[in-house]
C-alpha cells in the first residue's frame, strides 16, 4: 500500500527546486504565505470540528461551553495541564517518526507498536547484567540496545520489502503482533523478576539507570530527545542527498534505479531508522516511567503514531504540534469524563471527527487566493502548488 504522499512530495520538491530563482524578499513572503495556509486550514478544520462536536454534545443535553472550557483547562490552561499534554506527546513523537521516515519512500509501516515494546524490553534486559555499572554507561547501553533492536526488527521488514517484495504494511503489522507475543513470553518467562508477583515484570532498574524529568518540568527527557529526533529527521529528509534520494525512490522506483540509487538499501535504512526511533520510545517508557519492562508497554502508542504521521503529512517538523494537540485532547479526556459525566469514548469520537475534518481540509490547499505564493510574488512555486498539478487518486 503506497500512500499518495509521493505526488504531493513531488510537487513540493519541484517548488523547493524552483524557489531559489525568485528574489529573496519575494521568496520569503511566498514562503510565509504557504506556511500561513498550512496553519490556517488545519486550525479552521479544528474549529469546525469543535463546533460540530459541541452540537453533538448539545443534542445530548451537555453544555458545549463547559466542554470547551474543560478541553482548555484539562489540556492547555495551566502548567499542570500543559505538562500533562507534553508528557502524553513524548512517546508519540517517536511513534510518528517511525511512520513518517519510511513514508518518504512511499512505504506505509504500521508496526511501530512492536518496535516500541521490543525496544523497551531490550533496554530492560541489558540493564540487569549491567547492574552496578555507572549510570551514564548503563543508560547509554540501554538506549543502544533499544535502538539496535528496533532497527533490526523493522529493518527486517524493509529488507523483506526491498529484496523479496514482501508488502511492508502487512509484514510490519504481523511483526508487531509477534513482537508483543515474544515480549509477553519473555517478561513472564526468562526475564521475569521472581519478586514481581501479581504484575509480571523484568527486574527493576538500578536507580542510577533511571532517566529523570527535564529540568524544571515533570516531563521526562523523552520529550526533548523526541523533539531533537524530529528536527534531525527533517534535516535528513529535506536537507541531505540521502533524503533527496529517498524521495526520488518514493516517487518512482524505476527512475531511481536508472539513476543508480541504492533503492534496496534506502528502504532498509529508512525502515530501520524508523524502528530504532520507535524503540527509543520503549526505552524511555522503561527508563523514565516504569522502571522495568512489563505488559503495560503495550499501550497503543504505535497506532496513535500512525495517525499523527498522516496528519502531519509525513513532515517531521509538523509532528510535534500534532502530537501536542493530541496529547492535549487526551489530557483533557479524564476531566471531561468526570465533569460532564460522559463516557470515556466521547474523546474518541471527538478525535475521530477532528481528524476527519483536518484531512478533508487537505482538499482546500491552493483554493484560497490569499495564500497563493503567486499573489506574493513567487510564480514558480505557485505553479508547483497548483492543485490541478496533482490529480486525485
Amino acid at each position: 500500500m503506497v500512500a499518495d504522499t509521493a505526488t504531493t512530495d513531488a510537487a513540493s520538491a519541484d517548488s523547493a527546486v524552483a524557489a531559489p530563482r525568485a528574489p529573496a524578499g519575494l521568496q520569503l513572503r511566498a514562503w510565509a504565505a504557504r506556511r500561513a495556509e498550512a496553519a490556517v486550514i488545519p486550525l479552521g478544520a479544528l474549529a469546525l470540528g469543535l463546533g460540530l462536536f459541541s452540537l453533538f454534545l448539545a443534542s445530548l443535553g451537555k453544555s458545549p461551553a463547559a466542554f470547551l472550557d474543560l478541553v482548555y483547562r484539562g489540556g492547555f490552561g495551566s502548567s499542570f495541564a500543559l505538562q500533562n499534554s507534553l508528557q502524553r506527546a513524548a512517546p508519540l513523537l517517536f511513534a510518528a517518526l517511525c511512520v513518517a521516515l519510511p513514508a518518504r519512500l512511499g512505504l506505509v509501516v504500521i508496526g511501530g507498536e512492536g518496535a516500541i515494546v521490543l525496544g523497551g524490553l531490550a533496554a530492560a534486559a541489558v540493564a540487569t547484567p549491567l547492574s552496578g555499572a555507572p549510570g551514564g554507561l548503563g543508560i547509554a547501553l540501554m538506549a543502544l540496545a533499544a535502538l539496535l533492536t528496533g532497527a533490526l526488527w523493522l529493518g527486517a521488514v524493509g529488507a523483506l520489502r526491498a529484496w523479496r517484495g514482501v508488502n511492508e504494511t502487512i509484514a510490519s503489522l504481523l511483526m508487531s503482533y509477534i513482537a508483543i507475543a515474544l515480549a509477553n513470553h519473555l517478561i513472564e518467562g526468562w526475564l521475569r523478576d521472581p519478586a514481581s508477583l501479581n504484575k509480571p515484570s523484568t527486574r527493576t532498574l538500578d536507580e542510577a539507570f533511571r532517566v529523570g524529568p527535564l529540568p524544571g518540568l515533570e516531563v521526562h527527557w523523552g520529550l526533548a530527545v523526541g523533539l531533537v529526533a524530529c528536527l534531525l529527521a527533517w534535516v535528513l529528509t529535506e536537507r541531505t542527498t540521502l533524503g533527496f534520494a529517498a524521495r526520488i525512490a518514493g516517487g518512482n522506483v524505476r527512475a531511481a534505479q536508472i539513476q543508480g540509487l541504492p533503492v534496496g538499501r534506502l528502504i532498509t535504512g529508512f525502515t530501520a531508522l524508523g524502528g530504532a526511533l520507535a524503540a527509543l520510545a520503549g526505552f524511555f517508557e522503561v527508563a523514565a516511567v516504569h522502571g522495568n519492562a512489563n505488559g503495560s508497554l503495550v499501550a497503543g502508542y504505535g497506532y496513535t503514531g500512525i495517525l499523527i504521521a498522516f496528519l502531519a503529512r509525513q513532515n517531521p517538523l509538523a509532528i510535534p504540534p500534532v502530537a501536542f494537540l493530541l496529547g492535549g485532547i487526551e489530557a483533557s479526556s479524564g476531566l471531561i469524563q468526570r465533569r460532564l459525566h460522559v463516557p470515556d469514548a466521547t474523546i474518541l469520537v471527538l478525535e475521530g471527527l477532528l481528524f476527519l475534518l483536518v484531512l478533508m481540509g487537505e482538499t482546500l490547499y491552493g483554493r484560497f487566493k490569499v495564500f497563493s505564493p503567486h499573489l506574493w510574488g513567487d510564480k514558480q512555486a505557485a505553479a508547483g502548488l497548483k492543485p490541478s498539478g496533482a490529480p486525485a487518486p
Partner: protein
Amino acid sequence: MAHHSISRRTLLGGTAVLGLSALSARGALAAGPMTVGVIYVGPKDDYGYNQAHAKGAAALKGLPGIEVVEEENVRETTDVQKTMESMINMDGASLILPTSFGYFDPHVLIEAKKNPKVQFRHCGGLWTEANPKNAGSYFGYIAQGQYLNGIVAAHATKSKKLGFVAAKPIPQVLNNINGFLMGARSVDPAITCQVIFTGEWSLAVKEAEATNALIDGGADVITCHVDSPKVTVETAARRGAFVCGYHADQSALAKDKYLTGAEWDWAPIYKGFVTGMQAGKAPPNFLRGGLADGFVKMSAYGPAVSEAARRNADAVKAEMMKGGFAIIRGPLKDNKGNEIAAAGKGLPENAPELESTGYLVEGVRGSA
C-alpha cells in the same frame, strides 16, 4: 453533584503547587465534605472486575458530604499518574482508589510521595512498611468463593472434569484455580480441573476459544478469572455447560446454567474508608478480608443446584465465617509432585505464603 464544588475547583485553579497548598490547608483527614477518586482499567460495566469496583463506588454516592469522581479505561502508564494528579489538583480528591493491579508500582507509589496529604488505597497491590504511609492496599480472599464454587460444581459435574479460563499465572489467579479444585475435591477426590491461560486480562475471542477448548476436552462446569467473565459465561452456557461466576453476579447471562459465583463486595469496604476519613482516621495500610469480613460474597444459587449441594456449600461457608479456614491443607502435593503442605499442616486464608503462590495443586491440568 457536579455543581456545588465548582467554586472550589475554580479556586484551586489547576497548578500542582496551588492545589497542594490548598489541600494541606484544608487537611485531607478533616471531617466534612470529601472527594473520592476511583480509577478503572477497563469499562466500569464489564460484568466483572471493574463493575464490582464501580458498584462499590456507587454505594458511596449516596453518602452525605461525599463526592465520587470516576475515570474508566485508564492505561497503566503515566496516564494513570496524570489522572490521579488531576483528580487531586482539579477535583480536590483526598482519597484515591486506583483499582487495577498494574497501577501500584510505580504509579501509586510516585503519586503518594508527591501528594503526602492524600490517601491512596490500591486494590491488590502488596503494600509494605517500606512504602509511603499514605498509600496502602486492600484485597479479599476470594479463593474462598472459588472453593465454594468448586463444591457446587462437584455436585453438578457428570464428567468429573472442570474447566478454568485464566488470564495469567499470577498468585491471585493460581489461588483461585487451586481453590476451585480443592473445593470440588472436598466432595469427590476424583475430580480434575483443566486450566487454559489466555495471556491477557481482556480478549473476547480468545476467552471464547478457551471455553470451547475446555468443553471439547470434556469439562462440564466452567469458571474463570479474567477481567470480564461475560464472554466465558455466555459461551459456556450456550454449549450447555454449567457456569460458576466470578467478580460479579453473571446469573442473568447464563440463566439456569448458572450455579453460583464468587463476587466482590467492595461497598462496605469503601464505606468504611470514607466514614473513617470523615472521622479523621486514615484507612488501614494493609487490609485483607474474606467471606467473614464481608469482602467476598456468593451469588444466589441457581435452579440447577441440588439440595445436597446447597447443604454442603452452606455448611462449609458457615465454617469459613468462623475465620481461619485453610483451603490448602496437608497432605497436599502440587501437580508436579512436589509437596506443598505436610499432613496436619495448612495455610489459613490470611497466610502470607498465599500472596506468592507459584504452583497449581495436584489434579489441575496446566502449568503455573
